[in-house]
Every structure is written in C-alpha cells, then in structure tokens.
C-alpha cells in the first residue's frame, strides 16, 4: 500500500485504466451517451450521487445498471410511488419467531448502486429517508445504525414532463446530488442500432465486470489526495461567489456545491492523468455540478440555469494575475 499522501503516476495510470474500461463497457450498453457515462463514472469515483432528469425510456435505469455491473457491485431499483413508505426503502425490524428477537431486514437501499426511480413521486417523508441514506451513508432503524455497503451511489431519476401528483425535490435536497444530467434522446444512428441489438438480446447480460468494488473504494481514497492549490481553490470560491452575486440568480450555489465541484474535478484531473486540479477541470464540470443547485430569478428552468452557470464561467477570472 502506498503512503496516503502520495499519488504516484502508477496509481493515476491504474485509475485511468479502470475508468476507461468501465466507460467502454458502459458505452457498449448505452450507444452515444458518452457524456452521461462519463458523468456517472466521475460521480462514482467522487463518492457522490447522480440525478438523472429525463423523459422515460431513454435509458436512465440502463445507465445505472450498467454502472453497477461494470464495477461488479449490486444494483437495486426502487420505484418511488406516492404510497411508498420510508421502511420500504431502508428496511424494517421484524420479529423473528424462531430467534424470539427483532432482526433487521435491510431495504432495497442496501446496494452499491441504488436506482431511485422517479424519486419525485414519493412522499416527502420517504424522499427525506432516502436522502438521509445518501448524506450519511448509513441508516438508523430503531436506534441501530446500519452502514451502507461501499461504494454506495444513488442514481435518482426524475421525469420532468409528467409532474402531476409529484413532490419535486426542493433545492436543499437537490443540493445533495453531485451532478444532474439529462441523457437525452439518442442520435438517429444510435437509436437504429439500439433497435437492432436490444430487440433481440439484453445488453446488460454481456456487460462484464471490469473492476472490483475494492478497487473503486481504493481509487476513491487515492483521488482525495489530488492536489488543489490555494489558487485553484480560490478560483472555485470565486465561482461560488459569482453565482451568489449574480442578479439573475435568486439562489446561488451552496458551500457544499464547491465541495462537490472540487471532488469531481479531482477525479477528472486523475482521469486526465494529472495529480493536480486545474481550472480546466473545474470549468468542464461546473455546468453539470452547479446548474441544478441554483435557482434563476426567471423561474426554474434547466436550460436557463445551465446558461447562467456558463455565464459565470465566462466572467470569473481564472487567475488573479
């Protein structure tokens, strides 16, 4: 094992290769969705959670499942409905007649990759139970704390079109997701191929596990030691500050947003073969990481929020010099 403070080039190469294999594997499942695949991997390595906002049938679930498969982890899917209870998510203590004792029956949230499908359909109570798992990486049931398996990543999906009878995630909860992306419709070619392949076989079946959960966890530990100089951190702070002082933005990015941005930037740096973060990394990720956390004055609109973040990027000087 390497000293925890040093991030050698061999580690970087190793992480790069894991990520690249995972990416290739997932790309085989999701044709032409490299951006989504890449963001999903970045989120995984940064220890965050992903929010997919898209119409049904574009492959949200497929993405999550492919991710789980690729890293050799367990994948559980929770379909959120208005009548879903918190205990349905985290599990319950049940009385075991044989042992004459309560024993914990883990809910579907105990998996490496949890798909929270249509999370906006659940009641706020259930949503917050889910979000607690995400934030704390643990579950408390009747005074007993159960740790989530590692790595643990929630991929929540929201359907932006059919909003009737839903409880859209409030900003405070959206903030817990590292990134929000839309998968979007595939290109014509990709869709044609999809029809060709997926009609006859389950693409997931052929997805190999390219790495192990241990390796992913180890990679996460290493990535934490990627260098972010004071100057770089200053740049991130300046970005955060700019979103808060933008007259077109009603609610700017939270401090947590900065933390998430830096974490993902560190992953990106390593995946680009660097042991240090540069503003390029930050700029590449800022839209995905920030736009779901800010509230434009003009009303909530993904496109507008994304363009506001881009404006901020264009405005904030990279260097004091």
């Amino acid at each position, binding site marked *: 094992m390497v000293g925890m403070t040093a*991030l050698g080039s061999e580690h970087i190469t190793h992480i790069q290769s894991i990520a690249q294999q995972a990416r290739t594997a997932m790309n085989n499942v999701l044709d032409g969705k490299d951006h989504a695949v890449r963001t999903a991997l970045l989120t995984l390595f940064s220890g965050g959670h992903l929010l997919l906002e898209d119409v049904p049938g574009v492959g949200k679930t497929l993405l999550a499942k492919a991710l789980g498969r690729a890293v050799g982890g367990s994948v559980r899917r929770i379909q959120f409905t208005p009548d879903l209870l918190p205990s349905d998510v985290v599990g319950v203590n049940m009385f075991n007649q044989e042992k004459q004792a309560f024993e914990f029956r883990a809910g579907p949230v105990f998996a490496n990759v949890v798909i929270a499908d249509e999370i906006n359909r659940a009641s706020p109570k259930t949503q917050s139970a889910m979000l607690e798992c995400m934030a704390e990486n643990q579950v408390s049931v009747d005074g007993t704390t159960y740790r989530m398996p590692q790595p643990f990543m929630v991929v929540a999906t929201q359907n932006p079109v059919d909003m009737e009878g839903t409880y859209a995630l409030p900003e405070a909860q959206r903030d817990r997701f590292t990134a929000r992306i839309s998968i979007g419709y595939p290109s014509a070619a990709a869709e044609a191929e999809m029809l060709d392949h997926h009609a006859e076989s389950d693409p997931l079946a052929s997805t190999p596990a390219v790495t192990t959960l241990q390796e992913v966890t180890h990679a996460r530990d290493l990535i934490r030691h990627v260098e972010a100089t004071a100057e770089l951190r200053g740049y991130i702070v300046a970005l955060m500050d700019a979103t808060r002082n933008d007259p077109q933005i009603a609610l700017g990015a939270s401090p947590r947003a900065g933390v998430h941005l830096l974490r993902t930037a560190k992953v990106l740096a390593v995946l680009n073969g*660097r042991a240090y973060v540069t503003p390029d990394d930050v700029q590449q990720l800022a839209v995905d990481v920030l736009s779901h956390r800010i509230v434009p004055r003009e009303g909530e609109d993904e496109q507008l929020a994304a363009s506001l973040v881009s404006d901020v990027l264009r405005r904030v000087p*990279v260097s004091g010099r």
Partner: protein
Amino acid sequence: MSTETLPAQEHPPVAAPAAQETAEPSPWVLAACTATAMLLAALSLSSVFADWRWFPPTAAMIAVLALAGALLRSVPAMRATGSTVLVQFVLAGVLALYLTVSSAMPFGVPTPGAVAELFALLGAGVDDIYSTTAPAASTPGFTAILVVGIGLITILVDGLVSDLRAPKVSGILLLLLWVIPVLLAGTDLAWYHFAAVAGAFLLLMLSRYLSTSVRRAAAYSAVAGALALTLGAVLPIALPPVAQRPQQPLGQPEDISVVNPFLDLRNDLEQGDDSPVLEYVSDDPLAPPLRLTSVSAFDGRTWMPEPFDIDPFAVAADGLPRPDGLSSDTPVAERSADVRILGLDGQHLPAPYAPQSISGLERRWIFDPETLTIVGNGVLTTDAQYEVAYRSVEPTAEQLAEAPAVDAEEFETELALPADMPSVIADTADEVTAGSRSQWEAAVALQDWFRSGEFEYSLSAPAEASSSAIADFLADRRGYCVQFSGAMTAMARSLGIPARIGVGFTAGRPTGEGQYRVSLQEAHAWPELYFEGAGWVRFEPTPGGPAGDPPPWAVSSGTGEDEEAEETAEPTEEPSEDGAEAAPSAAPETPEDEAGPDEESGAEGLSAETLRAFAIAGLVLLVLFVLALPALLRLLQRRLRLTGRAGIGAGTHPRGELARAEGTWTEIAALSRDFGLGWDRARTLRAHEASLIADLDADAAERLRRVVDALEGARYAGAAAVGGIRTGAAPEPGGMTESGGVTEPGDGDPHASRRGQRTPAAAELTGLVRALRRDFTRRRGSPAAVRAALVPASLWKRG
C-alpha cells in the same frame, strides 16, 4: 535576434537572477568611467561661469573620490559590503575642507573652525547665486558649493554604477547637474554643453558593458545616446525659465533695469552734487549728450523704457547695428569718446548717440538694437573704462524739412498717447505749430516755443511728466528738463512725429583739450524725434539748467544767429556749414562702415537662427519622444517581463525560470490587448494556449506549451509537482476530457511527454513573442500592428 546568444549564460537560471549580466568589469574601469562622466558633466556647468577658477578643485574632488572608490572596491570585502560609499563620504568631507578653506587650517589639520568656515563659504555661495547672473565670476562661495555638491553626486553615481549596478539611475543625478546651467544660463548653453552631459550619460550607461559583447554595447549606446540627446535638446526648451526669459521686460530680471533713469533725474539734479560722475575725452565738436537710454513707453503717468529682449549674444563689444532709419546720404561723422566712469553704478552705459562699438569692456555689455541702449547683463558701470566709437548723425535742416512722413505702424510706441490725455496738449501743439509746412518745421516751432522765454527753468516743478503734469506745465510754464522733454515729446506725437525721450547726461564741463567732466548736475533728458532718412535726432526744448543750445539741425535756417559760433568750451551747437562739411568726408565711409555692423548683425542673426533651429529640432525631438514614449515603455516592459525581472519589488512574482514564464504570459496577454484581440481572463491557461497555438510554427508552439506547462505547474501542481507528475497524458483517444465546451479539444494531450523540460530561455521567449506578434498582425492587419506598437492599449487598459 538570434536565439543562440543567451542560453549558455542562462543555464543556472534560478540561482542568479542577474545571470544575463556578464562578468563584472574591474572597479578601476568603472571608477574611470564615473570620473570621466562626472568631469564631462561638470564641464557643462562652464556656461554658468565666466572663468574657470571653479574647475580645478572640482576636478580634484572628482578624481580623488573615484580613485578612492576604485582602490577600496578592489578589496573584495569592501566591495561586498558596499561600505566604500561611507568612506568616500568621509573623504569628501575632509577633501572639501582642504580644497576650499585650506587657509583656515594652518597646520593642515581639519578643525571645527575650518568646518565653520566651509559652511560660511557655502552660505556666501548661496548669496552669490541670488546676487549674480550667469555667466558669473566663480567666487570662493560658488566653488565651495560646486566642490561639495559635485563631490556628493560623484559618490552617489559611483555607488550606483559600481555597487548597485544601476547606471541608468545615475542619469537622474546627471540630469540634476544639467538643470543648473539650464536654469541659470539657459541662453548661454552651446551644443558642446549638451554633448558633455550626453557623453557623460552615455559613458555611465556603457560602463558595465565595456568589457563585454560589442553588439550589446552598441545597442545600449544607441538607446542611451538617443535618450540623452533627446533630453539634452529638449530640456532647455521644456523648462520654463529659458523660454520666458527673453520675453520678460527689461525691468524684471534682477538688476538689468529696475532703474528707469528718467525717474531718477529729479533726484540727480536736486542733489546739486558736482562730484564727477565720469570723465571723457572726445574730439566731437558737437559735444552731444551722453545718452543712457531712451524712454518711449508712455502710459499717461510715467515714461518707461520700452522693454527689449535681452539677447546675451548682442554683445556691444562686437559692434552695434546701424542706427534705425539712417540713410546713406545723411551726413554722418565717425567720432569716438574715451570714457572713464568715476562715480556711477548703473546698468546703462553712457554713450553718445549712435554708438557703433565699445571697446575695453567685457562681453556682458549687451545692446538693444532698437534704441542702441547698452546695458550690463549682470554688470554695473562701476569704474568702467571704455572707448565708444559712435556715429554722430548730423542731418541738415533742409534734409529734415524734406523728410517724408513716417509709417505710423512702425512707431506704435513712439506715437502712442494715452487715451485720457488732456486735450490742451494736442490743442497747444496745433496752435504753436500752425503754419508749419513740414514736420521738421513743426518740431522746430515747438522747440522754439519752449525756448521762447515764456517758460522758466525751475526744479521746483513736480517731478513728474504725466499727462496731467504736462498739462499743468503748459499752464504754469515752469519746469525742468523732465517737463520740457516730456511735453515736447507728447506734443510731437500728437502731431504725428515719432518721439521719445533720451535720458543721460549733457556733454559736461570741459576740463582741458577735448576733455570733459560730467557730474550728476548734468543729468538731463531731451526729446528725440524721428525723421525718415536721418533716424532719431535730438532736440533741445529745455531753456536752462544743464541743457545747452539746440543742435544745428534743430535751428530753423532763418534764425542762424549762432551759425558762426566757434567751438566753445561749452559747446552747444554746430554751425550747419560744419555739418555740411563733415558730411562729405563722412559719406564715403558710410557704405563700408555699413558693411561692418551689418555683417556683424548678420552673424548674430545666424546664431539666433541656429538657436531657433536648435529649439525647433528640440521641439520636434520632444514631440517624437512623447509620441514614442508608450512604445518605449512597452519595449522596456517586454524586456523586463521576458527576462523575468518585471515583478521584482512587487513581491508577487517568483524569481528565475518561473518569473520568466509568468512574465512571458503577462506579455502575451498585453500583446493580445495591444492588438485589440482582448484577453479573456476567465479562460484557463490551456484554453488560451489552444487559441494562440493554432497558427504558430512548431518551434513557437513548443515554446508556448512549455511556458503554459511551467505556469500550470507553478499555479496548480503544488506538492504534486514534487511527486513528478506534471504533465497531463490521456492514454486513449478522447481521454476523459470532453470535446467542445469552454476548454481545449480532447484529442490527445500535447503536453504529454514533456516532463522535465525547462522554461524556454529569454531569447527563445523573445522569439515566441515575436511569432505571436506576427500571428496577431496576420489576424488584425498592419494598421493594428502599428497601433499596437505606438499606442499599446495594455499600458492603460487592464484586462
């Protein structure tokens, strides 16, 4: 620029920021440079002084200090600590005592008394500054100031050049020295004074390169020479005193003529002092008055000499111009007078009209070409002894009577009358001159009227010749020369005759064969009227006092009762025949004589023209210099940036290689802004690189990448740089970077495989910047390139 000049010296770049500076010249070379430069600079002061007594002690001071500096600096310890300067200060103090107040140190040992003496001398020197004008005699006070001052400057320059290696700064000290002659004797400066200071500056600039590359020395000398010459030529024009001084009225600067002799007349006359003011020997039978000056500006209250441009080159000893308005057919007698001043301390030199040359006086006696007044430029008449050659203009009455009318525009001052002048003056003039057929007749009529017996000579009249005083005088009919001359001048003007008042002394009392003695009682004023062809001729309306009889031409031909008068002991008039006789003998001489002064004045005109040419050239240089200033600043900035010295002192820039990279980046940004391409500070290094690199050749592109690499490492790698991973490498096509967006294209990373490469050397960076400039020029066009060079926006616009 070749790229191979510097790298060899550059190789250990971080260790020595001054690595570009080559081997240190020997202290002796530097000291020799300093000494020579200071001597040259001191020479430029020679324009301030009339003699050279100040120079030997000053030169000795410079030489000893430079010698001591070289000696001390050749000891490595002294050199390292820079304490040489302290020793030099002490040495300068002692040396100043020996050079200036050695007499106060009988045993050759400095005493407190000697120090006090030195300070007293310095104080006296300061007084001298206030009481003299350049060129001045170098008094002991001046010499002391120079010895001490130049000694101090020498120490500072030596320290700057030898210890601090900053010869450029010493230019300011030279400038300081240069300001002295410019302020005190701007008009006495000649080209060789410029040359001396420029040479001194040049030498200092070159001092560090004397033993190194000839090429660089040449470049430096070109820049330094251009700068020095520009400054030298421009300063005398740029600084106000020189420009304004010639415009100042005669009265203003110091002593040149606070004195209006006309106003002193009453005092002089009333004192009744007959102690001699001056004596002279003259062969002139007319015995004209000795004129000090003439006053023509009349504002209704006082008569003032008309201000004239003090031109230090109008030296009376070189001859004076031909008197105004004198035509060649007017009889003229060449006369001379040997004058010895006994008791007169004035600025005006007494001389009969019209003086043509003065001998026996120093060159600081200058003249006004209009009035032929001779004044001392900082000297007084005290005990002066001189010979005046003058042209006695002796027109005939007929000639004056036939003189055509004058062009009023040429005689604005001499015809001017105050608007509020009582009408009685002009009315009386008309009345008295009724029936006159010419201006001459009118003038004679006026003069005769004053002399007719209706007027009484009296010193009790008010000492004024204001217009109201003249009107009173015309009523009271009592007065003395001031009133008579004032009244006649005013009345002549009202008749259209240009008139002014001559002020001076009457011929005085004869004391022997052609010898005269003049006392204050002979102080006098008389009208001078202008007639075309004859110029200014005097009249004599004052019927008593020291005044004699009117000159022959001022006597109407019918009333020649004095025509046969012999040349008496108190000569007053010349028979007109004599005048006529004199004319033929004088006339042939005239053309030749004319040539003399005219040539002289021609030569003077030339030198004035040369001066003007200098001034214009200087002005042009100044304009060019001001225009080129932004470009020069940018050049300097670029050089400092590319060599990594831009941020020294600001404390924000690291030194060495990194400083060069940062400097280069700043320079590239500035260049981009200069070209109007802007510089998006929200873009990352690599984003900039990507857009800059597009059109660069492989060499320049590689240098740019290395600069970006160095900067990225410095800014963002932090501790990771130690770990060795500096370069980005995306192992597979596409990598994890994303195409499009705000950052670089993702196809492979050009920064790969560059581990361990150094920041390019300064010369390579220059090449890179030049390549970028070419690229920008291609993109924006040549006009933008010119604009970028001359009006670099980055100088005043940020980001």
